[in-house]
């Protein structure tokens, strides 16, 4: 494979790593709209993709960007866009189109302070529930939350693999700090990465565009004589629209079930000092790095505290949080928002859950987390 980032060590930022990770994963189409703090991903793609036989287009808005990557993906190319809160809001309707048409794609949402325009240049974690529920109707998204430059690279590859495997748009909910901080990035030779290649469905007698019984059949691509219909309306396995609730039921059970039934394969997390912990912090993204520091300091003082870091925010690591909840006395959930992921931790953890609300705009202060840990051990 020529044109890929050569194996080696790099001093790079998260946006560089995301773009190069995408290219390593086989992304050959990028459509996007400039937005702080993710614009460097778009800029890098505009330089890199034409060099390696890929395609780049700067669209007129994020609505068009999301639509274009779905069009390109349906035509057979691994596709991606990158945005931040305001753009992510605009993408929600077509994200739903990707869900219902089972179209693989990767969407980077690099979170900044909100609501609305907020503080474009500074960090936030306010899109966590939007990543879960942002588009109308029911679905089961996959969302990754990298907390380093290395993960920005590695998880982008995983996001592409998951989107190809489960046939749905996959979200990377990164944040402004991870996108812009520079640190060590280690890139392996291409052969050492697992890259899921797109399979193409050939014309079959049954005319099926989707399978609602097996979890997965490959996509057809246009121009191969398949003559399939892909529809945003509720549809059957041939892609034909229907007004029947019974058809909706079968389709939805499949769309949700294909993720739900594979949660064990999808969910990724990191546990730190969990085994004997009485108090567990649940944190993701940049906040998890700050929280880990606080845990280390508290451990030195003999406080039995641990860290659970969801690497996939969604699907929610229900089993892990439930079993941790059974053996501890308190969850602490620090977030750069006014309480989002904490709701799910409380719901599934069945344990007292303390929220720490960091205002968007700053990297969380470890001393605030440490103080909350200390209070728990008074």
């Amino acid at each position, binding site marked *: 494979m020529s044109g890929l980032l050569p194996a080696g060590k790099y001093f790079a930022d998260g946006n560089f790593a995301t773009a190069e990770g995408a290219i390593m994963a086989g992304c050959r189409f990028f459509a996007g709209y400039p937005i702080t703090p993710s614009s460097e991903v778009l800029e890098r793609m505009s330089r890199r993709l034409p060099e390696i036989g890929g395609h780049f287009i700067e669209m*007129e808005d994020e609505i*068009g960007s999301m639509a*274009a990557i779905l069009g*390109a993906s349906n035509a057979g190319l691994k596709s991606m866009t990158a945005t931040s809160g305001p753009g992510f809001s605009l993408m929600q309707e077509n994200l739903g*189109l990707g869900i219902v048409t089972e179209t693989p794609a990767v969407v980077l949402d690099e979170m900044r302070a909100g609501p609305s325009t907020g503080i474009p240049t500074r960090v936030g974690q306010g899109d966590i529930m939007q990543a879960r529920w942002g588009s109308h109707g029911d679905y089961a998204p996959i969302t990754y939350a990298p907390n380093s430059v290395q993960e920005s690279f590695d998880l982008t590859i995983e996001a592409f693999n998951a989107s190809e495997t489960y046939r749905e748009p996959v979200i990377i909910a990164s944040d402004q700090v991870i996108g812009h901080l520079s640190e060590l990035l280690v890139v392996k030779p291409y052969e050492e990465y697992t890259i899921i290649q797109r399979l193409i469905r050939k014309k079959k007698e049954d005319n099926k565009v989707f399978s609602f019984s097996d979890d997965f059949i490959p996509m057809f691509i246009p121009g191969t004589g398949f*003559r399939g219909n892909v529809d945003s309306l509720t549809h059957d396995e041939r892609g034909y629209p229907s007004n029947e609730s019974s058809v909706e039921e079968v389709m939805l059970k499949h769309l949700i079930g294909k993720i739900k039934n594979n949660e064990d394969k999808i969910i990724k997390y990191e546990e730190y000092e969990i085994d004997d912990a009485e108090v567990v912090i649940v944190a993701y993204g940049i906040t998890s790095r700050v929280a880990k520091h606080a845990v280390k300091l508290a451990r030195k003082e003999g406080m039995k505290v641990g860290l659970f870091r969801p690497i996939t925010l969604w699907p929610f690591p229900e089993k892990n949080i439930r079993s941790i909840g059974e053996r501890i006395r308190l969850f602490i959930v620090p977030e750069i928002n006014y309480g989002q992921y904490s709701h799910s931790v409380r719901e599934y953890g069945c344990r007292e859950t303390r929220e720490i609300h960091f205002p968007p705009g700053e990297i969380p202060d470890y001393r605030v987390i440490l103080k909350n840990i200390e209070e728990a051990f008074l």
Partner: protein
Amino acid sequence: MTTEITHPKHELLRDERFPHIWCPGCGLGIVLQSYLNAIEKSGTKLEDNVLVSGIGCTARLPGYTNLDTYHTTHGRAIAFATGMKIANPSLKVTVISGDGDLFNIGGNHFIHAARRNMDLMVICVNNFNYGMTGGQHGSTTPTSSITASTPYGNIEASFNLPYIAAALGASFVARWTVMHPRQFTKSIQKALEIKGFSFIEVLSPCPPNFGKLNGFTDGFAEMEFYRKYSVVDEKANLEDIWIDPHHGKEIVLGEFVNRRKPSYLMREEELINKLKEVKQ
């Protein structure tokens, strides 16, 4: 004894999806037939023809054809088609959608696709209102028209679609009505050969909504109106060809623009070749 009758376009239709959802007197059947005739006559490989639509009555048309078809979200067909065409330039990607879909909610994508001279054909079936939702007014509703949401008459100015498309730089621009299926079909054939953005507006009756409220007692009456008031003038000043059915203004039809200019994909190819040379 019964004889099985198949539609002459059986091969290109999804028979099992009929009857269609369109109302008696609707022009969409003619649009469907014209498009299918055009791709058959065009000499393009049938499997290369892909249809993309947004939401609305017209947007249901692709789903009745036995081609590769994509029924996307409201207003976003052109953006979806843009991605599809760039990803696979060998496809003949046509967007067929309604005036509300393409020019109200989707206007921004139209503007930019035409500006880029994106290698797409866009067929806009203009019935002057939102048919599927019950006949509300939109940006193509003529001034003074009565609709479900302009009960006192439309006070807004309406879009003059060929004028917009030409101003934006489209390679090919035409306007017909469903009373002109032969000319319409020929324009589609021509547009299939065009490199760049081609746009065809086709006026079509909406009998239970726009028609009923504006003096057209049925689909036939609106067809008769098109017959009576249409003139073909390919040299018309496009600025003057807005539509005003209430004051006896002629409806100007024709192929207004047919020009050779670099398309988006031609320019992209040029860029990629240049990068290859630099590498060598």
